């Protein structure tokens, strides 16, 4: 068993860490500094198998393949072609999470289990490194190759106490040891040569004690002597290695991270921290290379609190997250006349994570696929994300798709439309108050375009309302608005105490729009039933599929929407394509649909509306019946109707240029609005757009300039403004 280090094969054994194997081979993997063997410091960081900032003392040698030194500076980025492995998340639930598998941690486990509580216990030394505590509480654990997320009721922090590192001059030399690390090294058979101890070090290590207090270390790359201060002056003690005992500082980072949550601290993590003597010079924070001189500079400028000192110097923000420097920052402030201050706030994460580890368990938001998704892809459609769905943007020839609708017949997949049944004794009363229209005048078999307003009279969504029976309605909404609309109707009907039933069928029903001058002819081939009139609807059997057939038009041409069970979508689509083959039927994508509807001046909620789009500003006052009863938004509509109109959605025409969506309009040098939708109309031979026009010096301009192009302001209905083609 071995791993590679700088071209050298390092023999290892299964039960030791990468660090121990390197030391056994005579290699200090960092750029010096005392070793702790407990993951508290930045002095053994390596790049292991393309992952940087890895604590070699916490990494089992058996999982390493290639190890390289790290140094004090930022390590090189991994090669771009190093395919990051997918990291899985293991989701768990427990009553108690115990962090730390030492004596107090195991006692906490036993006590919880004795009380019948489920327990998860994690210890970094066994490869389970707790890196974060989030509200919930949720505990995030990194393992070798995976992540664990545990939802729990209580967290017990039994992380013990870290040994305080020396930060005097020479602290970055090799050959320096914390007492526990020295013990492990000696036990592992490492020869530490002439070992000298400073401070409080167990006698069992057999080190020669240097007298007095630590002043500095001396050596060239490796320590050769330690200088201590005694009553008689400085004493130099030659050595091969030095073990330094400066006291303990409890590991409270995770406990502080869980501040305000149900977190209990036990064992040595509860100890009163030893506060070391503040050295006159040296590097207080080896991770961020912050010197005492820099701390003094900050202190002189008013950075007199732990939080400020951290932010001003970045001490405590590096690899060890303050494990080394926190005792010294506290000591520094106390030495400069401040009261002893608590450690600074701890935030996730406590350890560097790879991007793969950070992204573990995260997936791109799911997009819904209509039942015709495979059909679109087999036809070569370029699919795009719209309103939470995968939709065919184009089948490769948008012009031909457009022409098929205008001149012959075409199919569009509109399965994404929101679809909802509302029924019950109070269905009409509910819808009467939801929509600004007189629902009572919609007869069974008829439908109507409706806007849905919020309390401020602004447009939330639009769609169709179709009456099936006296107390049963079928509603459609925009593709992205279905869920919100359902919630809106449910909440309001409950508030009004209405007795209704609501069924959202958006995901259960497919819908195909057959549109074009030949649409009725093709559809008649698929049914013996009579097709509904314009704005009528009926339930018919089309090509053997039971459909709710709605005659309406978004494209500006004769159109029928066929709503049907999703499982029958492919069958219905295939049949219609076959029946329309002699008319060169072809499907149209969203790009063509957007052009078709723009020529007709039909708005798209979200693209042509803004947060403050009222029916009046949209020039959709015809869709609001102020003579009906109360409806949501009525009061606001009455109020705003009395205010001079300051902006409105208008049509824009140009002679030879296509405008850019979002382009700014100018009237002279004054801002006059923005373009919301734009296209070149092959049928009309001019550029057309919908745009939000604002008043300029109190009046709406009749011409505007957009990206250097002169444009005319016109009514927003460019194609067949009388609607004769849709009604044909």
């Amino acid at each position, binding site marked *: 068993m071995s791993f590679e280090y700088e071209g050298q094969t390092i023999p290892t054994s299964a039960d030791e860490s990468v660090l121990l194997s390197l030391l056994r081979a005579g290699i200090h993997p960092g750029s010096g500094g005392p070793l702790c063997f407990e993951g508290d410091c930045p002095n053994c960081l390596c790049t292991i198998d393309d992952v940087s900032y890895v604590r070699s003392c916490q990494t089992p040698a058996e999982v390493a393949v290639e190890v390289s030194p790290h140094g004090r500076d930022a390590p090189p980025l991994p090669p771009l072609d190093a395919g990051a492995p997918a990291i*899985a*998340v*293991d*989701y*768990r*639930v427990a009553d108690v999470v115990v962090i730390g598998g030492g004596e107090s941690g195991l006692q906490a486990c036993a006590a919880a289990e004795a009380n019948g509580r489920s327990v998860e216990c994690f210890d970094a030394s066994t490869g389970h490194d707790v890196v974060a505590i989030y509200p919930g509480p949720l505990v995030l654990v990194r393992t070798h190759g995976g992540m664990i*997320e545990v*939802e729990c009721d209580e967290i017990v922090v039994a992380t013990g106490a870290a040994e305080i590192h020396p930060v005097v001059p020479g602290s970055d030399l090799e050959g320096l040891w914390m007492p526990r690390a020295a013990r492990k090294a000696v036990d592992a058979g490492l020869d530490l040569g002439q070992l000298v101890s400073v401070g409080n070090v167990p006698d069992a290590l057999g080190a020669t004690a240097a007298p007095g207090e630590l002043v500095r270390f001396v050596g060239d790359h490796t320590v050769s002597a330690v200088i201590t201060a005694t009553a008689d002056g400085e004493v130099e003690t030659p050595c091969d290695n030095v073990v330094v005992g400066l006291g303990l500082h409890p590991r409270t980072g995770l406990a502080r991270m869980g501040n305000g949550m149900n977190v209990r601290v036990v064992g040595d993590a509860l100890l009163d921290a030893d506060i070391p003597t503040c050295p006159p010079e040296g590097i207080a924070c080896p991770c961020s290379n912050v010197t005492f001189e820099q701390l003094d500079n900050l202190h002189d400028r008013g950075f007199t609190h732990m939080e400020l000192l951290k932010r001003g110097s970045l001490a405590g923000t590096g690899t060890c997250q303050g494990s080394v420097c926190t005792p010294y920052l506290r000591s520094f402030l106390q030495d400069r006349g401040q009261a002893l201050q608590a450690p600074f706030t701890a935030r996730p994460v406590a350890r560097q994570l790879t991007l793969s580890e950070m992204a573990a*368990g995260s*997936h791109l*938001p*799911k997009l*819904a*696929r*209509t*039942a015709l*998704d495979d059909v679109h892809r087999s036809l070569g459609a370029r699919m795009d994300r719209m309103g939470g*769905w995968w939709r065919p943007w184009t089948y490769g020839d948008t012009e031909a798709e457009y022409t098929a609708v205008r001149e012959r017949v075409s199919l569009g997949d509109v399965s994404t439309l929101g679809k909802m*049944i509302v*029924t*019950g*004794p109070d269905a009409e009363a509910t819808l009467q108050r939801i929509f600004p229209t007189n629902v009572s005048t919609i007869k069974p078999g008829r439908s109507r375009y409706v806007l849905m307003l919020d309390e401020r009279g602004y447009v939330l969504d639009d769609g169709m309302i179709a009456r099936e029976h006296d*107390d049963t309605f079928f509603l459609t909404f925009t593709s992205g608005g279905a869920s919100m609309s359902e919630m809106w109707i449910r909440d309001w009907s409950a508030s009004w105490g209405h*007795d*209704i*039933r*609501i*069924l959202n*069928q958006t*995901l*259960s*029903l497919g819908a195909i729009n057959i549109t074009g001058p030949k649409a009725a002819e093709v559809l008649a081939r698929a049914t013996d039933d009579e097709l509904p009139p314009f704005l009528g609807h009926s339930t018919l059997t089309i090509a053997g599929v039971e459909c709710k057939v709605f005659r309406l038009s978004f494209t500006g041409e004769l159109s029928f929407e066929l709503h049907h*069970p*999703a*499982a*029958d979508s492919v069958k219905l689509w295939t049949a219609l394509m076959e029946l329309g083959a002699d008319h060169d039927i072809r499907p149209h994508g969203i790009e063509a649909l957007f052009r078709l509807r723009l020529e007709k001046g039909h708005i798209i909620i979200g693209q042509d509306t803004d947060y403050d789009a009222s029916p009046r500003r949209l020039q959709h006052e015809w869709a609001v019946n102020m003579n009906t009863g109360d409806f949501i938004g009525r009061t606001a509509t009455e109020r705003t109707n009395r205010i001079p109109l300051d902006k409105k959605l208008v049509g824009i025409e140009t002679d030879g240029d296509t405008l850019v969506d979002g382009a700014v309009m100018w009237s002279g040098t004054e801002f006059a609005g923005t373009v919301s939708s734009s296209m070149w109309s092959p049928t009309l031979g001019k550029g057309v757009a919908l745009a939000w026009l604002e008043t300029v010096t109190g009046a709406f301009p009749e011409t505007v300039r957009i990206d250097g192009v002169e444009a005319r302001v016109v009514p927003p209905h460019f194609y067949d403004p009388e609607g004769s083609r849709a009604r044909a």
Partner: protein
Amino acid sequence: MLEPLLLTRIVSTPAALDTADIPAEVIVLRTAPDEALVLADSSTISVDDPHAIIVDDTGWHGAWMSWDQAIPFLQANCAWELPAERPSMAQGRVADAPAKLWLEDDRMLIVVPHVMARDVADRMGS
């Protein structure tokens, strides 16, 4: 692994749903106080509510999984705790899809909207 299901969706008053006439062996997923998904066709169901909506629904896909299959799948794709009771119904986000789970002693049924079935199947490794 995920196959199309023929379900019946019922929307009615909670009281009428509580006393709905549904064959005893049929699995009922009570997704809300006023709504249920029933693993049977609508002809076998009646509800004492003249305004109830009872419709066949082909918009769902489902799969039975043994617990040997389900546990590793859920550990990697479900961040919430399942109820301990068996049989029972649970619902929530699984593999980023709104899923209904029917839990039995020796197996689990997962039901998801057909519009997300392919992506869930990918996560199931099938």
